[in-house]
């Protein structure tokens, strides 16, 4: 791959800035934190005790589709906006900042994978996404392994199609998806397929999660017929590997957004709440950790745009950059989540205070696609070499 020159400002230009600012304004207006709380956290019982699905706002989603966000990752030729990854990162930061419950990130994720397949059936699905059809990735086995290639669905050939059996787990916003982009093991190949949620033999089981701003489910396939036209790629593993940095960028961007909200909200509290005749922020045991959180968030954010820019440039360093971004974003998220509850004191420990909504969304995202330790393990394999390979490396 040719090493392209780095564009100024990570390629975050006027268009990207406009999109981001528009998103911020739109979400500020449509989903201020009071509205978010009313939507997803009026009371704990429905979701936590009675097992109801976390509510979302389909009406708001309709407006979002009209704004064209669903098709951001779809190329213009297929009816999308074809915006750069840097631009998408900017928008998703706003989505995280507002803890928006929606099928946006799952649909963007599916679109990135379909795009990476660069196939006719894939493009067909991308055109549907651009029109507002929602999708989710169904690629994770029951073990929770994040290795692209590990999967819990098997396929057997039947005519010119396949018969699929098995399950995909940890499917994000599964109950909002019109179709799934999944993987199935067929002999030595990993098949990438697209499957409508209504297809015969498909069932969804709800996971009971702590995050109130999304749903999650297990997709079960029992003798599901897959026709040849729904095979997106026979090289699913390669396709996923190529798309992986983009998937990491999406979750990292959401984390940067939630983290910044948590920081600013906690700073505001530390300015207003007084104890011992001083605002809390006067005390360095409050001030310094908030500065440390800011430093971590800024590191994550810079690495986020670096990773996005690498992807846009087709750089061979994309995966390394994205692992770094996800590691930094997960750790920054964990740290500011911790401080946001602690520094609010007793009120921060209550359902009444907004911080728990973000705490949970962040905690969910920290684990999603692998936490910091997981990213660093992958990174080490690339920057140091796999464990046990050191001696060979040196003599080579």
């Amino acid at each position, binding site marked *: 791959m040719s*090493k*392209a*020159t*780095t*564009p*100024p*400002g*990570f390629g*975050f230009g006027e268009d*990207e*800035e406009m999109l*981001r600012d528009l998103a911020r304004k739109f979400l500020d207006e449509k989903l201020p934190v009071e509205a978010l709380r009313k939507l997803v956290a009026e009371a704990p019982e429905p979701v936590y005790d009675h097992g109801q699905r976390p509510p979302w706002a389909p009406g708001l989603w309709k407006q979002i589709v009209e704004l064209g966000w669903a098709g951001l990752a779809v190329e213009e030729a297929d009816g999308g906006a074809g915006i750069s990854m840097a631009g998408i990162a*900017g928008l998703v930061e706003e989505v995280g900042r507002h803890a928006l419950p929606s099928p946006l990130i799952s649909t963007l994720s599916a679109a990135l994978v379909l795009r990476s397949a660069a196939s006719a059936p894939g493009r067909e699905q991308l055109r549907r996404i651009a029109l507002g059809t929602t999708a989710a990735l169904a690629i994770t086995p029951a073990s929770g392994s994040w290795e692209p290639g590990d999967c819990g669905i098997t396929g057997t050939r039947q005519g010119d199609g396949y018969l699929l059996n098995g399950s995909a787990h940890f499917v994000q916003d599964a109950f909002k998806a019109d179709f799934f982009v999944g993987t199935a093991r067929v002999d030595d190949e990993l098949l990438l397929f697209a499957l409508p949620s209504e297809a015969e033999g498909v069932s969804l089981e709800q996971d009971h999660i702590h995050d109130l701003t999304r749903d999650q489910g297990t997709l079960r396939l029992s003798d599901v017929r897959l026709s040849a036209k729904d095979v997106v790629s026979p090289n699913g593993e390669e396709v996923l590997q190529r798309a992986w940095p983009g998937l990491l960028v999406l979750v990292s961007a959401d984390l940067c957004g939630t983290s*910044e909200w948590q920081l600013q909200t906690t*700073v505001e509290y*530390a*300015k207003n709440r007084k104890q011992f005749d*001083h*605002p809390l*922020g*006067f*005390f*360095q045991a*409050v*001030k*310094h950790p*908030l*500065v*440390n959180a*800011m*430093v971590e968030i*800024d*590191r*994550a*954010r*810079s*690495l986020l*745009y*670096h990773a996005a820019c690498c992807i846009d440039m087709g750089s061979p360093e994309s995966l390394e*950059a994205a692992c*770094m971004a996800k*590691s*930094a974003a997960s750790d920054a998220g964990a740290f500011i989540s911790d401080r946001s509850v602690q520094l609010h004191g007793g009120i921060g420990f209550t359902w009444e205070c907004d911080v728990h909504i973000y705490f949970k969304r962040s905690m969910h995202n920290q684990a999603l696609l692998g936490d910091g*330790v997981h990213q*660093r*393990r992958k*990174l*080490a394999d690339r*920057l*140091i*070499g796999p*464990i*046990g390979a*050191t*001696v060979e*490396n*040196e003599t080579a």
Partner: protein
Amino acid sequence: MSAPHLSPEHAEFHEYARRWLDENAPPPAPERLPLSPIEVMTVGQRDYLQDWQGRCYEAGLIGCDYPVEYGGRGHQGFQSIANQALGKARVPFMINVVGLNMAAPTILHHGSEEQKKKFIPGALSGSEIWCQGFSEPGAGSDMANQQTQAIPQGDNWIVNGHKVWTSLGHFAQWMILITRTSKHHKYDGLTYFLAPIEGHPGVTVRPLVKITGESGFNEVLFEDAVIPDSCRLDAVGKGWTVAMTTLTYERGAAESAGGGSGEAARPTQRLINLARETQRNGVCAADDPVTRDALMQRAIVAEGLAQNARRARVPALCDHPMRLPLQQKLVGSELSQHNARLGVQIAGAHSMLYKLDSSAPSQGYWPLAYMNSYGHTIAAGTNEIQRNILGERVLGLAKSK
């Protein structure tokens, strides 16, 4: 990383700087060089480094953006390119760190025409070494608590006082000096001087010894030293404002007059190499999962710092203009400290061996670098003070005092 997007003129200069450094790398130093300019101890080191800075200056890599009449090259936006090239090339650092990064920009902002012509060229070329006389026994973090007195007498000032931790004082011709000229106002009672040091009557420079056993900084005593009024920078009583200009440059929050890093370009790579060469409990340290995780944490912080510098130039991605610049010193010094500490950990039993021991990994580099790293977390405003500044100026939290 690939070259940033540059105008043709800047791209040409980038190419020139890269090529010049490639072709003009200095010969190996006659004696071991210290890790940074604030640790230069011997005349041999000084001469070697002064010569190198002089050659870089002649080549136009230093003072690029300074006006021609003050010894610069009169360009715009060249210095950051030169600095990047110097940082990437494995060449020595600039010895005149106080002259370049503190004295020259402060004089450019606050100096008279005469002062700019007299002082800036020598600071840029390194022919005149500068030191900084801000700290005193009673004025550290609380820098405004200055007790060194300057009393006017005709066209002169009579200075009495005690400065400490004066890096490079033992080689300096000049000092940027803060004095108290009024006891009635803590901040408005300060005045800033460009004070002669070497061989000046009434000025005594005495070395102080660091935890490493090396010297590098000094205490400087002023006993009825006579300093002409022409050496006063800006107005009487404006010393605090002038000092703030100096600190902005010292802490890296503004582009300086020039300088290379001297550090190995990729510190993480150096640590990885150490891990590959080190056996611990019969296992290669590079295969130990805990060590691998620690190494990757370092790599991520290092890359994050580099990308912060890049993002700082994109206003659309910065919520507050000073948010990233003010983190530079804090994050950079702690990165070096944690890197050195990890090196010590990886070296294990061998990290106990110090400079003189022929079995010490990299001639004792790791323990030496770790000990020296505290110089950078303490100097230029301790990192605790940096956190106060960030919390107050950027986050808007109540002042801690």
